[in-house]
């Protein structure tokens, strides 16, 4: 399927190896289940049937995804396909119940929604105004769905323009306020720092100077309208060094994050599925 050109014999040996490993693993689990059943005859310590099915399903799906590390294989592809389908459906269901129902349908047909979906929906003091205003996103939403029909797909540019406009309007002021002015304000601090008793604080001063020099040198590096030669070039080089330290730190933190994710999956496999290391 993926165009590999292995000779049949090594492929058969590999298949035999996987089948043997699977059979050995299944035998060990059956043995373990039998031992556990003997130790707990009343079944008090066991899980419900659906939880057990769930744990096994999750474990097999986890192993399926991890099998990609060895090589691409049909087991991984099946798990990937399930993930795509389930993800798309999950986002759609969530969007329907958390946004479309309360924000759109509840305004277009409040009585029907109250009777069939949201019995606690409060009465609106302005139902007609709500209805009229809700027609706008309804119309825009239908236009957006027209994107799926090539002949009238151009109409989807209207709601897309609205989404872009709202985002641009939100970002324009917030980015200047929080990401520009606030950051400049945080940078432009007194270069000489003093502690609460009024004594000169050496390390705080060093930190403040490093902050000011760092921000200015990195901004110089990103200023491409002037050629990076002479004093500008040296400042830009210092800016690159600051950026390298920044990225080195970011790498270290990223590693921690990724390892944590993997550790959690191993914890599930060992403790919840196999019952070891708990």
């Amino acid at each position, binding site marked *: 399927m993926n165009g590999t050109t292995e000779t049949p014999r090594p492929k058969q040996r590999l298949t035999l190896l996987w089948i043997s490993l699977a059979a050995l693993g299944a035998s060990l689990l059956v043995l373990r289940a039998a031992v556990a059943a003997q130790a707990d005859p009343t079944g008090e310590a066991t899980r419900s049937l659906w939880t057990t099915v769930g744990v096994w399903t999750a474990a097999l799906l986890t192993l399926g995804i991890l099998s990609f*590390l*060895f090589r691409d294989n049909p087991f991984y592809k099946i798990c990937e396909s399930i993930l795509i389908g389930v993800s798309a459906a*999950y*986002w759609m269901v*969530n*969007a329907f119940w*958390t*946004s479309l129902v*309360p924000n759109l349908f*509840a305004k277009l047909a409040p009585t029907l929604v109250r009777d069939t979906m*949201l*019995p*606690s*929906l*409060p009465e609106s003091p302005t139902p007609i105004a709500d209805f009229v205003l809700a027609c706008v996103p309804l119309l825009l939403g239908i236009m957006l769905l027209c994107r799926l029909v090539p002949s009238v797909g151009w109409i989807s540019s209207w709601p897309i323009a609205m989404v872009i406009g*709202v985002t641009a309007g*939100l970002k324009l002021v*917030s*980015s200047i*306020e*929080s*990401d520009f002015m*606030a*950051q400049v*304000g*945080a940078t432009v601090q007194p270069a000489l720092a003093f502690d609460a008793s009024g004594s000169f604080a050496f390390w705080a001063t060093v930190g403040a100077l490093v902050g000011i020099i760092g921000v200015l040198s990195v901004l110089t590096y990103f200023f491409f309208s002037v050629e990076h030669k002479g004093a500008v070039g040296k400042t830009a080089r210092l800016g690159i060094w600051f950026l390298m330290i*920044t990225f080195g*730190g*970011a790498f270290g*933190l*990223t*590693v*921690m*994050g*990724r*390892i*944590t*994710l*993997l*550790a*959690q999956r*191993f*914890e599930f496999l*060992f403790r919840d599925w196999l019952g*070891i*290391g708990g």
Partner: protein
Amino acid sequence: MSDSPLARLNNLDRRWIFLAMGLSIAIPILLKLRFPEYPGPMARATFNAVEAVPEGSTVLLSFDYDPASAAELQPMASALVHHCAARKLKIVFMALWPLGKKQADGTIDRVLKEFHPGYQYGTDYVQLGFQSGNEGVIKLMATNVPEQYKTDSSGTALTSLPLVAGVKDLSAFKLVASISAGYPGAKEWVQYGNGAMPEAFSIVGGSTGVQVSQLLPYYPKQMEGMLVAVKGAAEYEMLVEQKYPVAKPEVIGQGRVRMGPQLVAHLLMIALIVLGNLAMIAGRSRGGAR
């Protein structure tokens, strides 16, 4: 003439590296390796920010992450909920990520109901649930919370819930905490929440290691405290448990549990980087000698 062993490492099948990484995490988990934690300034600042909120005040906890990031963020979320409840703060839960609502529900079940059974829904805590719209949600909540959330997550009108019946905008909350895995998250809370009303409430955030670089510029002026990845979670857990111990430390101790494999895996990363460079040098020397 054959290449040196170090030079041959340049052609190493990466599956051996995968195996080494797998073992470096699996073995510490099986052996239950644990190491002491020493809280840093950011974790202490987060702890102090929550301690500074007067008893009985209302706080907003935004669960802006999904199961993919729960390994890093759930420990700090659990510790934060326990800390707020131990300080007798009223808690309003919400989520900017669809799956965040489920994470919040799980935390309520495992932490709030387990360790603080006296907390009543509607008067002590409320679950508003998820709203789509990303930063638009925060923007609207900054001026009009009831317009954004007409009902809680189970469809009950906000006017029927005493805790949130009188809430008009974000200034009703003394503290806003965002446990975030990306967009939208803590950054948007700073930009649109703190930006809209800078002095009305404090913001603290918890984030994954990947996202923390984007949040560093906001600390400590716009964000009073920040928990950085699972290490920050472990440090914060330690501070919270020291002052407010629980009967089941394993529930508020997952961060410290997950720090066990970190040491071995980090040492492996360093070893891989060093070996890779030695292999490069050996390969170059071999090429130079020829």
